[in-house]
């Protein structure tokens, strides 16, 4: 307990320096500004804004990036409520009741409860991270390559189970992702693999380029396919602060959402995505009058938004303690950390405690900033949302090009976002979901490395993965999950959760 307090106070002493508060503020602001644009999710936002943190010291850069992430998340919810265009999977649920509230002239209350719920969830999640950080890190130290490999397999199985649409397609996407990660020099032998002899491919495909192409450019192409009818709320935003009745209705959903989101967020393999869906389904199940849902029930905004934010934050746990990014956003964080010479993993906490705890403390500050920035600035976001898409997308395109160019100063990187944009568009058109592919790509290199080491240690015997008890347990969980997901009855339920 004493450790807990002293660690947090170390963190706050770092995060509360004037410069770092300013960076957290700036990060939240620009994150919201880009994230609020329709059709731009957190992944594209972070990839676009990654270069602006390059000039900072590592602590400042990570604090700002975390701020950008929360800002992008919250910006997505704002768009979902005001325009009914969810920027990403997790705010789909918010759009259901949030947009109905907005049409009833209660947009302000919806935004308000989303911000307050998120803040509460963020506060709890920060404490969870601080409490779990140390024990999980020591757990990580006893993990060998065998356990790491099995853990990542489990993460990928999670991602398959949680992906929308057909399981077969999700498996194919993961395999393609891992396959893409093997492009480039082989680490052991130094031989070039699948590079077409092109020198800029010998380091492998750059993650930011892949993410920007698939989530930024492909998204623009897809949005252009639909003739746009954006229904920005014409009603007044109304008062922002929920009244006593609203609070009475939403405090329990916020609490439940926070717990659900925080637990799911820790799971490897993008468990956070499930949080809002689970919370919404739960609230609807236990509501006295489920018919209110979909027609502007405040619980339908409060619960999922809290779950969303709690999950967004606890998904830092696998990254900070085990060094395994659980989703694409965290993979971008890995990229950012590597640029600043930090290798994510258990050693960060022991070797660089001020960075570790400073970042955790800044998460809470970031959440507070969101509350402060967003509520007074709602008017500005509404005006931004009224800009027609034909004016917005050339601007988004330009930010993508400049952003990706300034990471490595390579024109080939810019060309590759066009290529991956086309690939992403093709995949979407054929009904594949690109998110699992990105996760496979992220984990691919780590998996190959650990697989090799594990097999060298066991002298080439595959049974090592079952002989190690921890590894066997992880693989068993993965197998059970996959079997459950394939059972017809469960599959139906899963489809229902996602179509709701």
């Amino acid at each position: 307990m004493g450790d807990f307090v002293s660690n947090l106070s170390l963190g706050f002493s770092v995060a509360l320096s004037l410069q770092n508060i300013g960076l957290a503020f700036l990060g939240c602001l620009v994150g919201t500004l880009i994230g609020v644009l329709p059709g731009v999710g957190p992944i594209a936002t972070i990839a676009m804004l990654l270069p602006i943190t390059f000039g900072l010291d590592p602590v400042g850069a990570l604090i700002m990036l975390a701020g950008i992430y929360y800002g992008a998340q919250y910006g997505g919810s704002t768009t979902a409520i005001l325009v009914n265009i969810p920027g990403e999977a997790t705010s789909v649920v918010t759009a259901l009741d949030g947009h109905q509230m907005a049409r009833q002239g209660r947009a302000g209350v919806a935004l308000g409860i989303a911000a307050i719920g998120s803040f509460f969830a963020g506060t709890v999640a920060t404490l969870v991270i601080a409490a779990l950080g140390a024990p999980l890190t020591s757990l990580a130290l006893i993990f060998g390559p065998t356990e790491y490999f099995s853990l990542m397999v489990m993460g990928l199985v999670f991602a398959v189970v949680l992906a929308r649409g057909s399981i077969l397609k999700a498996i194919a996407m993961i395999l393609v992702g891992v396959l893409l990660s093997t492009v480039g020099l082989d680490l052991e032998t130094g031989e070039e693999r699948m590079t077409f002899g092109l020198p800029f491919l010998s380091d492998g495909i750059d993650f930011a380029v892949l993410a920007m192409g698939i989530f930024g450019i492909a998204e623009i192409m897809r949005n252009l396919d639909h003739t746009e009818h954006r229904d920005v709320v014409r009603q007044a935003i109304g008062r922002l602060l929920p009244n006593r009745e609203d609070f009475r209705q939403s405090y329990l959903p916020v609490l439940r959402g926070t717990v659900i989101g925080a637990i799911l967020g820790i799971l490897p393999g993008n468990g956070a995505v499930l949080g809002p869906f689970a919370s919404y389904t739960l609230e609807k199940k236990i509501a006295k009058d489920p018919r209110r849902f979909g027609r502007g029930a405040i619980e339908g905004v409060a619960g999922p938004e809290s779950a969303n934010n709690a999950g967004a934050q606890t998904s830092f746990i696998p990254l900070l303690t085990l060094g395994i990014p659980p989703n694409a956003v965290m993979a971008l964080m890995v990229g950012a950390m590597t640029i600043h010479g930090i290798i994510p993993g258990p050693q960060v906490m022991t070797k660089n405690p001020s960075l570790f705890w400073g970042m955790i403390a800044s998460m809470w500050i970031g959440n507070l900033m969101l509350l402060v920035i967003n509520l007074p600035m709602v008017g500005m976001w509404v005006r931004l949302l009224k800009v027609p898409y034909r004016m917005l997308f050339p601007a988004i395109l330009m930010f993508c090009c400049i952003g990706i160019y300034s990471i490595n100063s390579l024109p080939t990187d810019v060309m590759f976002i066009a290529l991956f944009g086309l690939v992403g568009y093709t995949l979407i058109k054929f009904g594949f979901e690109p998110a699992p592919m990105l996760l496979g790509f992220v984990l691919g290199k780590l998996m190959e490395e650990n697989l090799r080491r594990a097999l060298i240690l066991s002298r080439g015997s595959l049974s090592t993965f079952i002989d190690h008890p921890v590894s066997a347990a992880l693989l068993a969980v993965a197998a059970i999950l996959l079997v459950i997901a394939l059972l017809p009855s469960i599959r139906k339920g899963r489809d229902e959760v996602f179509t709701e």
Partner: protein
Amino acid sequence: MSAAHEGSGTPGHHGPVRAPQGIAGGILLIALAALALWLTKDLDQGTLNAMGPAMLPRWLAIGVGLSGLAMIAFAFIREGEPLERWSLRGPFFIILAILAFAVTIRPFGFGPLALPGLDLVVAGPLGIILGGYATPEARFRELLILSLGLTPFCMLLFGDLLNLPIPVFPQELAGLFPAGWSQKAIMRAISVVMVVAAVAIFLATRGARTTTIDVADHSGRI
């Protein structure tokens, strides 16, 4: 490529194919797997004890190919999605814009062809205007004003405020300014010129709106 798939997909409603999208996706996966297998054919697979560079890619490619085969098989058994309609205009102009940006942002050589570096001051507006035509609603006047307004914003934000290593203007242009001016001063001056031009075009064409739009735009008038 898309046309061929659509051709095989349309009669699928009557024939044995129940999920044209599954067929197309399956073919895509198998093609990808074949490409990967061909690219790794000369590499050593090694043994489990000492994995060679080709081991993992090869097995992954086989997995991808099998998924593709399974998808095609399912397409004959289970009812599935039809192929979505493709639009070519969006992707074409977006890709064109990105490529134009990439080859003009700094000197670019491709075989015998060598392009001078025109930097952000040209690459920006070029990308914005070309990209803007990805939608049928594009209007030249709007895009011109947008490009002249947004480019200086990017120049000042990325070049001036954030000091990112992005080439902003060609050095030949610096000759036009007094010798004592610093790079940043020139950058700011160019930005001001562009913004003034944007405002001037906005004001000058405001009255003549109906005529200009008739020329530039055929689909949606105001």
